């Protein structure tokens, strides 16, 4: 149990500290790297909760794919660090407002859960039935009770995908494309022509 609490505090403190560093690091690439560290620690917390499938999905999807593209874009940008700091005071009130609202919401949730008996009796934080792998447990709920919501999520993602493709797709015209089949069927009879060249004349 001591080891459990120690690992919990290790993961959570690193997650919180690196989340802080995401918004305070001067270099945007460092910010993204701290974001990744924070994700990895969050997935460590999931493992401690016994939700190993969620932990792995978090790493595969967010760290392995989304954050790579983040890093990709941030590295390519030519960022002026001084300009980046300029709007700080201008955006501060709005950001602070958002933060305060979030803290209040979290506080309300925490307090109400503590005072009612939902917290203690009906929804335990850890799965009771440990015999079933939690991958199967998620599947059994996701594809039965939440089937329609799951499908709607898929459709929303599809719409977002089509939207982003139509936004970025511009038919420039005059783009040279290669036809793989026609290239592969080229042989000497098409590519080479033999000519008799007279001395001193050329073609």
């Amino acid at each position, binding site marked *: 149990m001591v080891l459990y609490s120690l690992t919990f505090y290790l993961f959570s403190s690193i997650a919180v500290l690196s989340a802080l560093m995401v918004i305070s690091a001067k270099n945007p690439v460092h910010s993204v790297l701290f974001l990744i560290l924070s994700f990895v620690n969050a997935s460590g917390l999931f493992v401690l909760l016994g939700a190993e499938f969620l932990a792995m999905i978090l790493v595969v999807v967010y*760290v*392995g*794919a989304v954050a790579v593209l983040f890093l990709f874009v941030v590295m390519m940008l030519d960022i002026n660090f001084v300009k980046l700091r300029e709007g700080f005071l201008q955006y501060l009130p709005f950001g602070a407002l958002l933060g305060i609202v979030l803290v209040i919401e979290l506080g309300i949730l925490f307090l109400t859960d503590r005072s009612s008996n939902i917290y203690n009796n009906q929804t335990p934080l850890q799965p009771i039935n440990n015999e079933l792998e939690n991958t199967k447990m998620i599947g059994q709920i996701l594809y039965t009770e939440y089937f329609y919501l799951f499908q709607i999520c898929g459709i929303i993602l599809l719409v977002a995908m089509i939207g982003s493709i139509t936004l970025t797709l511009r038919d420039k015209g005059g783009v040279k494309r290669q036809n793989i089949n026609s290239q592969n069927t080229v042989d000497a009879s098409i590519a080479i022509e033999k000519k008799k060249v007279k001395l001193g004349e050329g073609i």
Partner: protein
Amino acid sequence: MTYDIIITGLIIVAQILAVVVPVLISVAFLVYAERKVLALIQLRRGPNIVGPFGILQSFADALKLITKENIIPSGSNKIVFILAPIITMVLSLAGWAVIPFAPGWVVSDINVGIMYLFAVSSLGVYGIIMAGWASNSQYPFLGALRSAAQMVSYEVSIGFVIITVLLCVGSLNLSKIVLAQQTVWFAIPLLPMFIIFFISALAETNRLPFDLPEDESTLVAGFFTEYSSASFVLFFLGEYASMILMSSMTVILFLGGWLPPFDVYPLNVIPGVIWFSVKVIFILFLFIWVRGTFPRYRYDQLMRLGWKVFLPFSLFWVVATSGFLVYFDMLPN
């Protein structure tokens, strides 16, 4: 109480060492084998001076590299520059925690083993991107960008291949995946997926013919152009260790892990570890053979193969496999 914790800790450390040390030694011999096989393909002799048949060549090279000066470019981002090879090395060793070498021979037999391997191999791209960015130089940066796009693209088809296998197994546990192949290895019913997985593994480990991140003829040495001495050794070790890791993954998913080809008398006496190693060595030989045979892909060809050929085909195969399993009522439990 504390005594117990110390004992368990020591056992865990011993288990980790029992996996990591053989992996590192096999990396040394893999490098030697690669040079020797390539030499034979190209009608040369290969390393033959250090030790009998040149067997100790890799150790001599490693010693030489480690004793050289470690140069950190003045324009580089020092912390990230030093961190990048360490991350590559650590990730290529971390995956070994879940690999079952024989029944029960596994450091951590977790439920989501294959997901863990997938996650670790998808994290491998960070070492390369960080190295390319921190070097603050054009060639490494180009190499890093290429590899980021390449690894993300081929992960998609690897994901679908893994899903196909999982449909036939009904579990994400690696030992169960191996045991599900007792009647027939998945390489036979899922042969196209096996081929796609092998080719994607080549791309995922940045091996020829997909080694564009370190394309010598255009990018000097790609993402590790600025690295020298020990940090270069870490990259080198990491790359070959992840090559062996991907081969083990191929063996577990498609070639029946530690199982003998047929469960008959002379074959099933041989221990599982030996079968496992023989299969891994076979896949590694394929890696080297491909390197000695095929020319490098152009970048647009690489992307076309990943997105326009492998992705639709593996997606189709996932649907076809699940349809087949449902129709004939062969879904596992």
